[in-house]
Structures are given as structure tokens and as C-alpha cells.
């Protein structure tokens, strides 16, 4: 008798994803045998909108492409405009760009780490990661005026300086962040339960990374040594010392370790930027009057990977063409191979492992009978399967754990 294939629709609205995406999992029993990805539930036509806005307005528009990496798109965009129009940028503005970019990387990685813990049924990691993320967001608010959507960037510089009082506040926050980061690194690296749930799961080989041209931590976890900050130096990244964090196995565990390692590097970069901001005063904006005709490319290493912007200028005050490519566009298709052959309980964390830009919207996932469309398993049950596996492993390891009766 032929095996019956069942479809599990994950999305379009699902706690795994901030953006509505629709993953159609094809399963035989517990095993995932196929995946189809549908996008477009939140298509806003930003590229078209940008053609009707002047360059200053465009920055505010692209800031809203993503709610989490809201400074990554503006950094890439201003660089594309500056390259197209041959604009100067003062050095102090470059340090401020990297400073804000790295603060954003820390809070984005902490967000992902917390959610990964939550999906695995490791809620302590969730609570702790988000507790410390809050302090990073508070500093972002103090320095920029907003917890997110900072409005700091403009072609030719930045909008707001970082004065000495805020430099000391950022330093103080970094000091308090140091021991929690050590804790996260040690908890994850040494915890047998997290290792059991993530080692060898959702593995991507360097060949698969190259096939999908995947970027960011997803590529670096598989040993693919690319980082736009080092390879195509921009902002202050060529003027400070830091290392690219690389792992080799390409499984979920390595993706966690890359992101934790990157937070340490971000702290290193921020500290150096702060020192330079203290010792190197100067203007923060070159006040460009016009953008010359031309074309330019800007890219930036967002927390999820390379953000790419292409701008064509005809010398007027608005772009003729503005192409935007976000990192998830390259990373999400890797799920088509990462999830095959894995179990439903592991699919949740594998789909989340590329960090497809999520911030918890609604929950809508269910296992349907393909013939009758009758709901066989709800989204809640799907998430609980992942947690039950953790609980089972915990009991196998002889560890104490929370009662499974708690709600998701």
C-alpha cells in the first residue's frame, strides 16, 4: 500500500514568522518529504513606492521594510545613494552607523535566541534572552529616540550625534550584558538537552549554501566564510578590529553558536566605535545638495545576512529605480532542503533557524487531511510536539524539567 502523504500548512500567519509566509509541509507519518514555500501575503510594493519619494523620504520608507533590522536597510540604501551620487560621508557618521547597526544586531540575535528556546520548550532561555534584549532596546531608545525605527540615517551622514553622556550609558549597558552573554554561550554549548535537540538537525552543507546563495549566519554556520562587513568594507567596519564568526557543521546548533559569537563581536565593535567617537569629534553630515546622475550599489550585513540595494539616479531628487533584496529572500529557500527527511517535531525549529524575520503575530498552523480539509492537528499541538520531544529527551537524560501541562 502506498504511503499516504499529508500536508501541514504552516502559515501564512504563524508564531515562527514575523512576515506572513506560507510553508506547506508534505509529510509521511512523522517524516517531512517535501516543502513548498509561498510568499506575497504582505507584499507592499516598496520598490514602486520608492520611485515616488525623494531621497530623504526613501530612507524612512526602507526603514519600514523590516521591523527588526530597521537600520540595516537604511544603511544599505544610503550607501547606494552615496555611490550613485558620489557623496561624501564624514568619518564620525560612519562610526555612528556601525554603532547603531551593532546594537541592532545584538537585540535581533537575542530575539532569535529567545524564540528558538521557546520553540524548543526551553522557556528559561526565552525569558533570559528577552530580559537582556530589553536593556539593549532601552539604550536604542535613549540614543536614537526609538526602540526601533531609529530614523538615524540620511544620505551624506546621520541625523543625530551620540554625545558623551550617551556614550557612557551604552558602556554601562555593555558591562551589564557581558555576564549574560557568557551565560548564554556556556548554557547552549554545554547543555546536553539543547545539543540533543539541535546537533545534526536541519544541516546545510556548503554546497547547498552556494546553491541557494544563502547569506549571513545561515551561511557562516555551514563554514561558508562570507561577511559583507569584512568582504566589502563599509561604515566603520574597516576601521575597527573584529572577527568573522564561523562554524562548520551547518546544523541548528552551529547557527545558534554563530549568533551568540556574533553578539560578542558586536560588543567589541561597539566599544571601539565609542572610543573613536570620544576622541574624534567632527561633523556628522556632509549636507549634500544634489545626487548626481548615476547608479550605485549598497550592501550591509544585517543580522540575518546581506541586505542589497541598487539605486539609479537621473540627477533629480528621487530614484529612477530602487531594487531591494532582503537576506531572507535568499535564506528561506534553503528550508526546501534543510527540512526534508526530518521529523515534524524538528520542522518547527528548522524553519525558524534561518531567522526568517519574525516577531510573533498570530498563530495559524494545522495538520489537514488533504482530501477533506479536516483539521487533524492544530498549531498548538504542532508546537507542543516540539516541546514534548525536549521533555522526552530531558527524562532520558535524567534531568528535572517543567511539567508539560503548561500552555503554549
Amino acid at each position, binding site marked *: 500500500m502506498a504511503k499516504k502523504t499529508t500536508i501541514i500548512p504552516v502559515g501564512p500567519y504563524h508564531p515562527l514568522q514575523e512576515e506572513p509566509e506560507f510553508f506547506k509541509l508534505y509529510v509521511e507519518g512523522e517524516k517531512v518529504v517535501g516543502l513548498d514555500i509561498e*510568499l*506575497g501575503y504582505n*507584499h507592499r*510594493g516598496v*520598490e*514602486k513606492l520608492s520611485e515616488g519619494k525623494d531621497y530623504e523620504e526613501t530612507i524612512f520608507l526602507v526603514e519600514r521594510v523590516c521591523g527588526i533590522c530597521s537600520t540595516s536597510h537604511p544603511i544599505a540604501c544610503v550607501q547606494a545613494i552615496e*555611490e550613485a551620487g558620489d557623496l561624501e560621508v564624514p568619518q564620525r557618521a560612519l562610526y555612528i552607523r556601525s554603532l547603531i547597526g551593532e546594537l541592532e544586531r545584538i537585540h535581533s540575535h537575542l530575539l532569535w535566541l529567545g524564540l528558538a528556546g521557546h520553540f524548543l520548550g526551553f522557556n528559561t532561555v526565552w525569558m533570559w534572552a528577552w530580559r537582556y534584549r530589553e536593556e539593549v532596546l532601552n539604550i536604542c531608545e535613549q540614543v536614537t529616540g526609538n526602540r526601533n525605527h531609529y530614523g538615524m540615517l540620511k544620505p551624506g551622514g546621520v541625523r543625530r550625534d551620540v554625545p558623551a553622556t550617551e556614550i557612557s550609558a551604552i558602556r554601562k549597558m555593555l558591562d551589564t550584558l557581558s555576564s549574560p552573554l557568557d551565560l548564554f554561550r556556556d548554557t547552549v554549548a554545554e547543555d546536553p538537552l539543547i545539543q540533543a535537540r539541535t546537533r545534526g538537525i536541519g544541516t546545510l552543507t556548503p554546497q547547498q549554501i*552556494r*546553491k*541557494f*546563495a544563502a547569506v549571513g549566519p545561515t551561511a557562516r554556520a555551514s563554514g561558508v566564510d*562570507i561577511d*559583507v562587513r569584512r*568582504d*566589502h*568594507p563599509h561604515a566603520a567596519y574597516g576601521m575597527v578590529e573584529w572577527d568573522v564568526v564561523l562554524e562548520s557543521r551547518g546544523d541548528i546548533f552551529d547557527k545558534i553558536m554563530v549568533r551568540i559569537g556574533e553578539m560578542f563581536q558586536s560588543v567589541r565593535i561597539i566599544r571601539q566605535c565609542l572610543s573613536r567617537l570620544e576622541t574624534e569629534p567632527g561633523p556628522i553630515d556632509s549636507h549634500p545638495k544634489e545626487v548626481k546622475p*548615476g*547608479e550605485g*550599489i549598497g*550592501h550591509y550585513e544585517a543580522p540575518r545576512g*546581506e541586505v*542589497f540595494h*541598487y539605486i*539609479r539616479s537621473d540627477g533629480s531628487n528621487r530614484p*529612477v*529605480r530602487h*531594487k531591494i*533584496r532582503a537576506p531572507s*529572500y*535568499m535564506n528561506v*529557500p534553503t528550508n526546501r532542503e534543510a527540512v526534508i527527511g526530518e521529523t515534524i517535531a524538528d520542522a518547527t525549529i528548522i524553519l525558524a533557524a534561518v531567522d526568517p524575520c519574525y516577531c510573533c503575530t498570530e498563530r495559524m498552523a494545522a495538520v489537514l487531511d488533504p482530501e477533506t480539509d479536516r483539521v487533524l492537528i492544530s498549531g498548538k499541538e504542532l508546537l507542543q510536539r516540539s516541546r514534548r520531544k525536549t521533555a522526552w529527551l530531558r527524562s532520558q537524560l535524567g534531568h528535572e524539567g517543567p511539567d508539560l501541562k503548561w500552555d503554549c
Partner: protein
Amino acid sequence: MTPSDVVMRIQSALGERLSDLHQPSEKRVYFEVDPNCIPDTARLLHDTLQARLQTAAGVDGPHQMEILYHWALDRLGLVVTVRTRVDRDQPQIASIAAICPAAEWIEREMWELLGISFEGHPDLRHLLLQDDWPHGKYPLRRDFRKD
């Protein structure tokens, strides 16, 4: 290998099929080829030079449509942009998805938003627009009007 070596490799491989090669800075190379030369160029950049496809972008013009393929050579900090022009009335070009699977989504996107047909694409269906989007309406074209 240096950026100038890359330029020499491109020039020797494509010969007279290549035009308008310019380097606005040491990190950027732009050149233009005929549409029928795009698969060979993709093979050269992806297979021989091990470049990473960053993305592609269609640009609508009054008579022609431009397609720009952006390739990154990360070790050199270089971005190579390949430009080609197709007829605006019947924009058609060979798909490079078989050479570089990462192009699959962006070709689907250019097909639905600009109406460029990619011959040999394995799965040319809507990516961003809804499945019942009216045929022949391409929202990223300059003459597109909302009804």
C-alpha cells in the same frame, strides 16, 4: 586573483560579445552583453569565477527593458553587474536558474512584476502577487495604472 584579473578573464572569455565595460571604482565592474549571451556569462561568473548571485533587477525603459544581474566576488570585495537589454513589447530571455538555482525566485519576481518571460524556468508561477492577478498587468512597469 585581483579585480583586474577578473576583468581580464571576463574580457577574454566573452570577447566581442561584451560591450560598455567600465569600472566606476575598484569595487565595481559593469558591462553589457546581448540577451542570448546571458547563460554563458552566468556560467562564467557562477561556475568559473565562483561568484555569488546577489540578485537581479529589471529596469523598465521607454523602448527596452534592462535586466541587471549583480554578482559578488566576496574574496575580492568586488561586485560585477551584467547588463542586458530586451525588447519591451516582447521581453524574453533564457533563464539562468539551471546554472544558478538562486536565480529561481528573482526570475519569478521579474516575470510577474515586469512581464519578462524566462525561457526554461522550472517553475514560472506567481511569487509575490496573488495567484489570480490579471494576466498582462505588470505593476513595476512605468505605464501601469491602478484600475
